[in-house]
């Protein structure tokens, strides 16, 4: 006769299953919480589409469906990957590759958003505030150096799109198809969607004949340098919405002008 108490197989199996189940619960919860690491690292400040709520609310409200991606005429919007943590599937704009040029006029991404993550409270490009442009490398800026610009913006390989009203009112075209010959480079001002609208409004031809499309303030202007000289300096004004077109079209590498994503612009 054995002195060992008999093993209750059924009980043993039940206990093992309970332990396995507890491990599964902890495991799945733990893995899901790992998403906090890339999320709160704050190393990935992203330029968001027009109307995006403040970052935390934006993560909460976005249902990660990509309808904003689908309606954008210049395909400026991309969805973030798993390396963005809880930002997985949340839309962003890589302005240097393809900025938002508002060629849809009607903020279609905002209209497409089913959850209000892109707030429906705005109707016009000038009402958005995605970020704020900043002349990060004044020494590189062609205008500051008094230099002109000839040829294709960003070269023949660049695939970025922009709408040129005088070429095609409705369809954006590759920027490389529209070469420039400028005595003094003013691409960031000349191609700024807000400045284009201001010029159209000054001529009495606002987009869609809607006076509400007229921005209330300049976004970027070229001004004489302090102390004179041949160069001019691009100055970012209060009307800048941070669409990123200036960063996209800037011919220097790295771009002399970039978009800051933090909301320092609000304190301007």
């Amino acid at each position, binding site marked *: 006769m054995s002195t060992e108490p008999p093993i209750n197989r059924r009980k043993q199996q039940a206990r093992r299953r309970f332990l396995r*189940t507890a491990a599964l619960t902890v495991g799945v919860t733990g893995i899901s919480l790992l998403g906090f690491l890339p999320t709160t690292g704050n190393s990935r400040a992203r330029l968001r589409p027009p109307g995006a709520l403040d970052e935390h609310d934006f993560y909460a409200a976005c249902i990660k*469906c990509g309808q904003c991606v689908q309606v954008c005429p210049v395909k400026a919007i991309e969805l973030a*990957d*798993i390396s963005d943590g809880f930002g997985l599937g949340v839309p962003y704009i890589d302005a240097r590759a393809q900025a938002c040029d508002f060629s849809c006029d009607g903020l279609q991404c905002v209209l497409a958003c089913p959850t*209000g993550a892109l707030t429906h409270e705005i109707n016009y490009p000038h009402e958005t505030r995605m970020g704020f442009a900043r002349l990060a490398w004044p020494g590189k800026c062609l205008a500051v150096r008094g230099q002109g610009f000839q040829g294709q913006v960003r070269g023949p390989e660049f695939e970025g799109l922009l709408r040129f009203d005088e070429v095609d009112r409705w369809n954006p075209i590759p920027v490389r198809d529209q070469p420039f010959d400028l005595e003094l480079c003013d691409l960031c001002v000349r191609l700024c969607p807000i400045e284009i609208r201001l010029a159209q409004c000054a001529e009495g031809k606002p987009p869609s004949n809607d006076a509400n499309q007229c921005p209330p303030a300049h976004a970027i202007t070229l001004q004489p340098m302090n102390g004179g000289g041949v160069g001019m300096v691009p100055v970012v004004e209060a009307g800048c919405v941070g669409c990123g077109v200036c960063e996209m079209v800037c011919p220097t590498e790295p771009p002399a002008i970039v978009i800051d994503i933090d909301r320092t612009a609000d304190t301007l």
Partner: protein
Amino acid sequence: MTHFGESLMQLLGRAPKRPDKAAITPAAQKIHLYKRGQKVDMEAIRAEHAAHDSRKWLRRRWATLLAVNLLFVLSFQLDIQLLEGALTASRFLGFHMADLNAALQVMLAFKHVVINLLIGTVTVLILWIVLGGRSFCSWVCPYHLIAEWGEKLHLALAARGLARDYSFHRGVRTVLYVIFGVLALATGYTVFEWISPTGILSRALIYGPGLALAWVVALLAFEVFVSRRAWCRYVCPIGLTYGLVGLVSPLRVSYRLENCQHEGECRKVCLVPHVLDPVIKGRARDVMVPIGADCTRCGACIDACPTGSLRYEFRGL
């Protein structure tokens, strides 16, 4: 216990209860008594079954699942705008649709519901009440299809002793459901969406693949080598959300006791075999028993049944 109560408790994770003798209708008792002494000739059953088409619902289901996901892909690729968005939220011919679980996570995290989201959620709620709740899982979810292929591999490997099948308590899905809900509410992040293979796969199909697919591969590897169909069975809150919808759906599988041979082919192919508890000899409460809400209405049991004892049913028709 009522069918509804039993269905709900099984959905939340409780094991099926053997019905008291008093709860079994006299007609069913008579059949149980008659069958008690019957011997089952498995060879004869298999031979009979092999004689007719046993992949009817599998074909229809895979075709539907591929068609829905393809419609998403083509709508964007060809810019035909029939079904815009992804499985988490979309517009079908302009009408808002929102996945119930994704919408729930957003509502808990954001604590604010815009009218478009409400319209989309109610539309989809009505749709899946009519179509059977968890039928979303087996007829639409892209991960389900991949997991089915993984399951075939798992079974082949397990037969050679190369894969294990550890089981878990099914109540873990309910626990995780509450955890994901509380996390969304407390942190303001839709935490579950970070690990949802349904959302990841749907977006990968439509917008192109990304690193997130590595997570889907890891899940699949777990299912192939460690635990059969573990994600759908034990974890996925989407399944539980649609299961709750299925509680009140008129579209379901129903079981007819009379001709059943109780050989159990249906339970072998079922993702959620606990719902087929009534097919076990002596368990059916009536001559006709509706299958519970956790059933994904995939039709695998209907395809597998040699006697036609399992059928789709639309209550009221």
